[in-house]
């Protein structure tokens, strides 16, 4: 799946905010190779587990960010993760479907619901869309909690998802149900998400998406159907969320309605905003940093969640571009005057005032 990143023709990428140079492609390739060989280089099970969570979160953050680019705060994503996970779990447990059938079925299920929701809501703007997407998140959770309890298990969730199979790869066999198996599954999810989203965002469509986030009516006045482009990116994000949900079911082997609630949805917002929305590296960086930080903060109990909230507030107040904007700020300076410039200006003003006062006194 690394080839996807490399094979993208560089000419199409100039529309993105960071054109992929030969250096960029090399770095991406090196990172891909390093990531692929990490389990065989002796990453221990704990590290592999944290890495899987990290990849999963990066995939979610990038999917969320893509819709955010069109000016929509989309809270439905986690609901679609839930739909994917429940579809997989129900089909695998009740229908004894194999992984090869259950995973595509979950993506299709997410897409079908996504088309309906998209048609109903993507014409709405700003706060209206946010409200409906939020309500959809809650309603989906309630749906799995109290409808079709025989199929979905109500509050007890669905337990006993069969383990994913052992795959023969190049003569060797990869047990997908092992930590390194999950590592590869989530790595694949992340690379697929990043590649797909990057291709859309850095193509001409990407320019359109950015135009939409600036002004709908302006974009429509030059003949862009905002609805069509929003639908394209929304469905891409939705299908990927369904895939993520399916993988989630195979990783945890149990699914609960509360797995797909507000907490997780808010965390995805935190990843994206903390990392920065200006570039695809933002949500990737944000999700990585916060996942690792979260592992460390876990020992502090509720303080962990308190810290997420504080980080969100602090970033919104002081680092609005997020983490990815920090290098640029240091080299180029932020919108405000750097402190040294402000101080010099203040000194000049003080001198002028004092010399004016001195001159006045002398004239008297």
């Amino acid at each position, binding site marked *: 799946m690394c080839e996807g990143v490399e094979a993208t023709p560089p000419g199409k990428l100039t529309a993105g905010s960071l054109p992929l140079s030969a250096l960029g492609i090399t770095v991406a390739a090196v990172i891909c190779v390093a990531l692929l060989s990490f389990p065989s280089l002796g990453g221990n099970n704990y590290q592999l587990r944290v890495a899987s969570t990290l990849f999963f979160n990066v995939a979610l953050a990038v999917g969320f960010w893509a819709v955010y680019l069109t000016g929509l705060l989309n809270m439905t994503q986690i609901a679609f993760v839930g739909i994917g996970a429940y579809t997989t779990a129900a089909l695998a447990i009740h229908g004894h479907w194999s992984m090869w059938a259950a995973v595509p079925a979950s993506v299709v299920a997410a897409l079908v619901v996504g088309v309906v929701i998209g048609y109903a809501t993507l014409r*709405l703007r700003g706060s209206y869309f946010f409200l409906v997407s939020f309500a959809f998140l809650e309603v989906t959770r309630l*749906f799995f909690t109290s409808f079709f309890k025989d199929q979905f298990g109500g509050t007890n969730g669905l337990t006993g998802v069969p383990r994913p199979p052992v795959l023969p790869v190049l003569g060797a066999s990869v047990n997908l149900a092992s930590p390194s198996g999950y590592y590869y599954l989530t790595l694949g999810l992340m690379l697929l998400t990043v590649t797909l989203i990057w291709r859309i965002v850095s193509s001409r469509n990407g320019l359109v998406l950015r135009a939409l986030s600036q002004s709908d009516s302006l974009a429509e006045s030059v003949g862009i159907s905002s609805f069509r482009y929003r639908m394209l990116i929304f469905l891409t994000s939705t299908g990927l969320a369904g895939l993520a949900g399916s993988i989630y079911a195979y990783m945890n082997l149990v699914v609960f309605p509360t797995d797909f609630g507000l907490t997780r949805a*808010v965390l995805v917002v935190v990843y994206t905003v903390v990392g920065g929305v200006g570039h695809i590296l933002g949500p990737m960086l944000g999700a990585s940093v916060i996942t690792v930080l979260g592992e460390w903060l876990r020992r502090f109990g509720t303080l962990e969640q308190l810290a997420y*909230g504080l980080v969100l507030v602090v970033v*919104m107040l002081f680092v609005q571009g997020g983490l990815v904007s920090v290098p640029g700020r240091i080299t180029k300076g932020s919108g405000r005057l750097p402190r040294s410039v402000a101080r010099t200006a203040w000194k000049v003003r003080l001198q002028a005032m004092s010399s004016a006062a001195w001159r006045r006194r002398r004239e008297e």
Partner: protein
Amino acid sequence: MDLTSLVQGGASGALLASLYVLVALGLTIEFSLLRIINFAHGDFYMLGAVAAYYLFAEVALPFPLVVVVAAVGGVILGFLAERTLFRRFHEDLLGAFVLSLGLAWVLEMAVVGKFGAYPKGLPPVVAGVSRFGQVAISNDRIMVIVVGSLIVAAISLYVTKSQVGRAMRAVAQNKDAAALLGINPVFVGTIGFVLGTALATLAGALVSPIFSVDPQMGVGLTIKAFVIVIIGGMGSIPGAVLAGILLGLFEGVGGIYVDNAQLAVLEFLVIILFLILRPKGIMGSAEA
């Protein structure tokens, strides 16, 4: 369908309606003046209820004083939040939303740390139950409905008749025009935000003897208030009052026939239909 249960449902609907209107009023005023959605609004309501728990159940202050203290606390908190956090996010819907999401998270988790994560109940303020024929309503509920309606009436009067209230409506209609006429929109916005927060904390304290107090009580109410603000028309005060009453009665009466989850799914469908058929809301004029 028998009449008794219908009236009983109507009574619990009236209770919900007074709570919803109190909370949604603040949200809609904040939106009309600052063009922001404060996702932490319900958490101010939660803080009011938690304060009432400590002051009423533990310190045993008289209940009217508890409500006043909660409202004053809301004024102070609202002022601080507006000055330190929301001031830079006026008219920035996404930014203000993400910021307030963080604030809501912080408030909730801070309360979990001090108060504990589990619901706690308050003793009744006005003990006993009033009977009207076969319908029984606890006196506390009647107290909340009466006091809540009076406060809503007072706020509506304040906003329509007072100098500041008229300034608020001017800013809500057209900020630049209001500024040209010598109204300071930032100052009026601060007053509106403070008023909204105080209404939320007051509502929390007022209903604390009826609903159990817990740190997670705010989020659900924020969503409800948000629904009301949109159905009523973003920023419209009469719209919010009307939509709040409708939603409260709908839930009160609907609660007799279906369970809460089914009600929520039903509500969602109604909202979607509503947004597609009449996105401006009942009384809204401008699009957000």
